[in-house]
């Protein structure tokens, strides 16, 4: 479903991703692991078009998307829960969710029922449906950000540290939900700091270090190779020199 070849990305001048190649097969949950600053979020941003790669190709559903604008990519059925939540602070919870379904040509009732599903997953959002998102607590915003992405009914859902700042009990239900929507046919690309947790629900995993894929394989095999994994995850941003 998603195929990345030799991706090179830079923010200002120095490349952050040197050469990343990975593949996400339809119907799977794939995890992207890596130390802080390894370039995980950057990879997702490159996929959704928020940042233009210097070179390399990204293919989504058989189409090259590396030169497309984010809105075009999103319309193709990709949803991205970005790092840092990025809810619309001045819109209410309901409005945030509605905007989530912006690209869909769905009927009102469909959107309504999807919204109901989001509320079922996060009852807190239902309680607060008219609160301005900017005044929600950190965790509440995180829930909203995830729920908003799900509203677009995507083919590929990319989650950047969904568990960040959430209470353990909520993390449980999110993980359940990810598995559930995956079983219903949505492909998932997941970034998680909590490697153990991520590997426990995913099928396949890539490990990124200093802008390169250094390890990949079935989640179980990666999980078994604890020592190697620890070594890569610990190599915390030594790549930065400036």
């Amino acid at each position, binding site marked *: 479903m998603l195929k990345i070849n030799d991706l090179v990305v830079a923010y200002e001048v120095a490349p952050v991703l040197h050469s990343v190649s990975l593949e996400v097969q339809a119907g799977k949950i794939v995890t992207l692991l890596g130390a802080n600053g390894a370039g995980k979020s950057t990879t997702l941003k490159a996929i959704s078009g928020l940042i233009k790669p210097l070179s390399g190709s990204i293919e989504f559903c058989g189409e090259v998307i590396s030169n497309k604008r984010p809105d075009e990519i999103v319309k193709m059925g990709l949803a991205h829960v970005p790092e*840092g939540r*990025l809810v619309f602070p001045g819109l209410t919870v309901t409005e945030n969710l509605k905007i989530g379904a912006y690209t869909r040509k769905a009927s009102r009732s469909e959107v309504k029922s999807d919204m109901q599903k989001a509320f079922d997953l996060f009852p807190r959002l239902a309680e607060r449906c008219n609160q301005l998102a900017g005044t929600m607590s950190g965790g509440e915003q995180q829930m909203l950000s995830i729920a908003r992405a799900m509203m677009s009914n995507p083919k590929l859902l990319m989650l950047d540290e969904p568990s960040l700042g959430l209470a353990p009990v909520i993390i449980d239900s999110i993980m359940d939900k990810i598995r559930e929507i995956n079983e219903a046919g949505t492909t998932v690309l997941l970034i998680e700091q909590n490697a153990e947790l991520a590997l426990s629900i995913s099928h396949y995993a890539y490990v990124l270090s200093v802008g390169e894929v250094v390890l990949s394989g079935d989640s179980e095999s990666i999980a078994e190779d604890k020592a190697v994994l620890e070594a890569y995850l610990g190599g915390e941003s030594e790549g930065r020199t400036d």
Partner: protein
Amino acid sequence: MVKLFKWLKKYALLIVMLLLLAAPSVTSQYEFYVVQRGVQNAIHVLGLLILIGYSGMLSLGSAALLATGAYTYGILLVKVGLNPWVGAALAVALTTFIGTGLALPAFRLAGPFLVVTTVGFGEIVRILILNMEPITGGAYGLAGFAKLLPSTRWVYYLMVAALFLIAIAVKRIGESRLGLALKSLREDEVAAEVMGVDVRRAKMVSFALSAMLAGLSGVFLANLTGYLSPDSFTAAESASYLLMVVMGGMQSVTGAIVSSIVITSLPEVLRFLSSSRLLVYSLVLLVYLRLNWVRTGKGSLAGLMKTLGFPLGTGRAKDRS
């Protein structure tokens, strides 16, 4: 080339000052007058640098503070008959006091709210000057006050000396911890507050310093023109001071001085500008803002300036997303 620019940058302030000292001997009478106005404006603009550049509080009422300084000086001399030096001191003091009072709305207001308040302040001062005729001379203006020093040239040297000291002081304040506190107002007031920055005091200091310099500049203005009338202190004037701060780079003391002098003398250099002066000013400002603050890739003005080591706007605080 780059080395030359580095050298220039290091000694820029000194070079500018030397040029200014030489100005009276190399300019015609009228050109000299324009340079004088430039220096006088620069003093005011350095104040705005503290307020707008450092602390990030936009003011469109600065001409009113200039007026306060100039008029107080004039009134104290003409109506009270004070000695010019005493008048000047009191004028600066009063302007500082009023300017500090302007910080009160800034305690609770920010962004456009504050700007509109300063616009209002400017209007209030202008209308008061216009209508308190027995004191201010109203629409007829105010004239007949003495200069600080008998010769125009000596007033000029005094002004240049003041500018030099002020420039150094403003620079030092910018680099000091106090300056950091002021800059924190611009970037994150809440964080600053919680880290022990007395935000109100910082705002007051910022307004007070900038008002003080506005007052001083006003005193010099009165000395230069010998005549004051309310129509030289309009909102349009405030806007051109804003232009001077922005074109000077918002952070750089030397930049502010150079831009004040250049912008003041621009219409004289380019005579065709005279009737559409503001049109060209504002266009230049827009182009500058657009090119300087938006990275348009290599070859842009911003890229060029950066390679030459000139200060660039720091408005580009990117979020990490």
